[in-house]
């Protein structure tokens, strides 16, 4: 396969919401290209008409009864927020 470009890595970083330093980006580009190169052999496996496996158990969507259950303790949950204001979790503006 063609090597990934710096633009490819930048695009993935945006999709993944991860900020990389310039050095990290270049390392990532080289290593991903190397790893993906090892996967090229997969295309040689004949898979026409083969179903995809998502899970190995026959799991279906399980619905529980709509009955109230005790919730998590509010303080136990909120104590973990990096930026808290009383009963609220503070976030940065979504729109500038």
């Amino acid at each position, binding site marked *: 396969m063609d090597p990934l470009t710096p633009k490819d890595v930048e695009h993935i970083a945006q999709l993944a*919401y991860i900020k990389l330093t310039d050095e990290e980006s270049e390392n990532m580009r080289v290593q991903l290209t190397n*790893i993906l190169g090892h996967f090229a052999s997969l295309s040689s*496996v004949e898979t026409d008409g083969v179903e995809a496996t998502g899970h*190995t158990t026959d*799991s279906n969507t399980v619905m529980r009864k709509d009955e109230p259950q005790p919730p998590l303790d509010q303080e136990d949950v909120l104590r973990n927020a990096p930026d808290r204001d009383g009963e609220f979790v503070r976030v940065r503006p979504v729109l500038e």
Partner: protein
Amino acid sequence: MTTQSTNSDFYFSTARDLRAKFDGREMSSVEATKAILDRISSLEPALNTFITVTPERALKDAEIADQRLRGTGQEPTSLTGVPIMLKDNFSTKDVETTAASKILKGYIPPYDGTAVQLLKDAGAVILGKGNLDEFAMGSSSETSAYGPVHNPWDTDRVPGGSSGGASAAVASGECFIAFGSDTGGSIRQPAALCGVVGMKPTYGLVSRFGLLAFGSSLDQIGPLTRSVADCADALNIISSHDPRDSTSVAAPFTDFAQDIDKDISGMNIGVPKEYLVDGIEPGVRAAFEASLKTLEDLGANISETSLPLTDHALAVYYIIAPSEASANLSRYDGVKYGLGSLDNSTSAQATEAARGEGFGDEVKRRIFLGTYALSAGYYDAYYKKAQQVRTLIRREFTDAFLKFDALVTPTTPGVAFKIGDKMDDPFQMYMNDICTIPVNIAGLPSISVPGGMSEGLPVGLQFIGPQFGDTTVIRAAAAYERATNWHQKHPLI
């Protein structure tokens, strides 16, 4: 690491032996727990197997267990009063849970996972949280943000991973049983490299609720122990159908130890030739061949077989697992818990900064790999293709189990390697799991037992069974254990 402790019989005894001591009033759980906590204090500077030790909680657990053992209250279980470790990717109420990541430093979960709850109900004494590769992504326990774990057999070497804290703690006598998770070999590979028993049950037999998710279709909780019997006992405690995990199923048998004393005369065991890869170390190959001879002497019918798609398993795994990881780890956004970034002008920038700073190199690499494989234009070529080949790999196993009761392979191609040796080449690191990964792809049960020594280091022997054939692999492993003394070898530490 030169002198054998005079109390080594105690530290290296099995959970069953310890429970017998409790029953015989030779020792109390509080006494055992204190001795283990002392052992942890003395060994941790050299091994770093724990991220968090909780001595006060453990002693309180032990006091309650002693009451239960004396017949007041609930009937005791096989694990009542037994000191155990939980890998630090198990959600534990009120005890910090980091998954060995900087992004979760200081996170105090508001709830217990199902396996944790079951272990608490059984009266086990929880010593603390075991070190691991960050988010269980690794084969050496070197990617932990809390420093690498050292192998008790040679502290310059890795203990394997990602449950390396668990395997090193069981091998060194810092706990009697440890519980880990296995996505591509993360219980069996470190068990092999530290000379202990490790089992990944059939996918679905242990609830994943409260296990910090890595690859949801592959992850499974299991025990690391010093005997096959302890492994079966531990599975009896943690296996359950859980309404909070839609992939959890009820075991089609009542007792994982039901066949443990049966012999294996007439058992048909296949040796898939693709697992004896070119890169396998000569000492590991020799140990494996000796193990085959032992199994034959026990009356098993050993014959070679072929699973040609094994060669593609690594690629399938390293597409599916990172894809699932990239989705699962999107929850770490630095808003509700974990490392936050407070000095950015927008929400998106804050999230990018928190994740950039909070995740280590290997976790970033896998998120990038998965994000790429799932992105527009590449989904069919990578993710869908990998899922289709996954179906073919499952079929190949299903066909093999028409002929064989179990398969046997080396657990790893080599013994424990030096710390730092493989950190610069991710693909070399991934090759460590070449014998364990196909099992997760197919959701099968598999156990690794001590199966020899090479260069003074432990070698693992892996049995693989058909889906829900957990009692078959336990039976084969127990018969092998009875016929050999590898499980009685312990590091001089």
